[in-house]
C-alpha cells in the first residue's frame, strides 16, 4: 500500500504491505534503528515513538495506520552535539545501564511531561509502567525523568497540562 507520513520532520512516500508494523517500517525501511524491539508482544515499551505527538508502542501499530500522521523517533528529538533535555538528563543521572530500553523510556518521558503529568517519583513510576528496564535501573531513570521534566517545564515549551481544548486529538 502506498502511504505518506512525516518522520522526524521529513515527508516520506512509502509503499509497504498492509501487514507491516510501524516499528518494522521505521527500522527496516527507513533505517531508524534507535527504536528497539524488545519483546514484540507490546509489553516492554522499547519501541515507543510519538505518533501525532503521543507515545505509542510502534510494535502494536500498523504502518498504514500512520498514513498522514507525524511520527517522531529517538533520532528526531536531538543530536549527539545537541541532546534533547531529556536525553541530557538521562546522561547526567546515569539512567541507563545496557541502554536497550532507553529510547523508549525517553520518548515516554517526554510524552508524560507534555501531558502535564506530575514529576513526583510515584507519578513518574506510574507513568513509566509501559516501559520495562531489564537491568532494573529504575531509580536513576525516575531521577532523570524528574530532572529532564523540570528543565522542559522551566523552558516553558512543554509545560501545558492537557485541557479539553487540546484533547480533541485524533487517536484511533
Amino acid at each position: 500500500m502506498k502511504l505518506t507520513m512525516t518522520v522526524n520532520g521529513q515527508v516520506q512516500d512509502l509503499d509497504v504491505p498492509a501487514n507491516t508494523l510501524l516499528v518494522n517500517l521505521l527500522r527496516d525501511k527507513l533505517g531508524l534503528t534507535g527504536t528497539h524491539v524488545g519483546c514484540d508482544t507490546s509489553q516492554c515499551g522499547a519501541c515507543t515513538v510519538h505518533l501525532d505527538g503521543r507515545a505509542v508502542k510502534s510494535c502494536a501499530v500498523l504502518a498504514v495506520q500512520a498514513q498522514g500522521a507525524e511520527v517522531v523517533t529517538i533520532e528526531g528529538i536531538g543530536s549527539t552535539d545537541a541532546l534533547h533535555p531529556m536525553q541530557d538528563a538521562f546522561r547526567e543521572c546515569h539512567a541507563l545501564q545496557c541502554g536497550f530500553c532507553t529510547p523508549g523510556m525517553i520518548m515516554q518521558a517526554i510524552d508524560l511531561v507534555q501531558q502535564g503529568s506530575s514529576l513526583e517519583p510515584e507519578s513518574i513510576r506510574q507513568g513509566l509502567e509501559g516501559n520495562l528496564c531489564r537491568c532494573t535501573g529504575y531509580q536513576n531513570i525516575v531521577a532523570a525523568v524528574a530532572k529532564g521534566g523540570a528543565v522542559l517545564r522551566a523552558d516553558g515549551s512543554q509545560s501545558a497540562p492537557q485541557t479539553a481544548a487540546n484533547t480533541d486529538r485524533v487517536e484511533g
Partner: protein
Amino acid sequence: MYAFDYHRPDSLTAARDLFANAEDPMYLSGGMTLIPSMKQRLAAPSDLIDLSAVAELRGIERVQGPAGDSIRVGALSCHNEVAKHALIQQHLPVLAQVAGAIGDNQVRNRGTLGGSVANSDPAADLPAALLALQATVHTQDRQISGDSFFLDLFETALAADDIVVAIDFAIPRRATYQKFRHPASGYAVVGVLVAEHANGIRVGVTGAGPCAFRACALEDALSESFTEAAVDGVDVPDAGFNSDVHASAEYRAHLVKVLSKRAVAKLSA
C-alpha cells in the same frame, strides 16, 4: 501476521458497506488487543476496516440520555482523552478514574472506549462502568442497554457488523472504582465500581466472571444500608468465576467483597 486488505473509510455507511462486501472482515479501532492478536495469528481477518477516520464516532458531550443526565462519549475517544477530559473530570470523575487505570500510558494513548467494550475482555475495566453507570450503547441504528450488553467471554450483544458509535454514562450522585490490578498486565484481577444514583445503588464487577456483571445481592444490601457491614452480610458465590494461575475463583469472590468494602469506605469518608 497474515496478509489482509486494509481500508480506512470516512463514514459509518462506507464502513458497513466494506464490511458487507468482504469475506471475513474485522473492524479496527485502537488495535490494542486486535493487532497483538493478529501478530500471534489468533486473529486473521481477510479485511481490516480501520474506523479511525469516521467522524461520527468522535466527541464528548453532556446529554439527556435514556437514564437521565449523562455524558455521551464517542467510541473513538482514547482512554487518556476520557481520563483527562474537562467535562468528564468535572461531572463524571469516576469514568476518568476508570479510564486512567487502564493498561499503561501508551495503551491509553491509543486504545479506545468503543474498541474496549466491543471486545468484552473479562478483565477490562470499562465494562464495570457500563453496568454501574446505567450506560446506553449507541450503534449505527439501535440502542443497547449496558445491562444487556455483555453476554459472555469476549461476547456482546453486538452483531458482527455493528459499530459502537457512542456510549451514554449516567451521572451518579457519587461513585468510585476499586481495582485489584494485575501488576504485570495492568488488567483487573477484579474491579468493582459502586455508584449511587437517584434511583438506587449499582455495583458493576469486572475480572471475576467470564464477562462483567452487576452484583445484585450487593446492590440490594447497600441500598438498605450503605455500610461495610452490609457487604459482610452478603454471600458472593464463586460458581462460574474465572480461575487461573493468578487467582482462584474463591479468591476472586473474596476480592469482590474486599473491593466493595473499600468502595463503601471511600464513598463514606
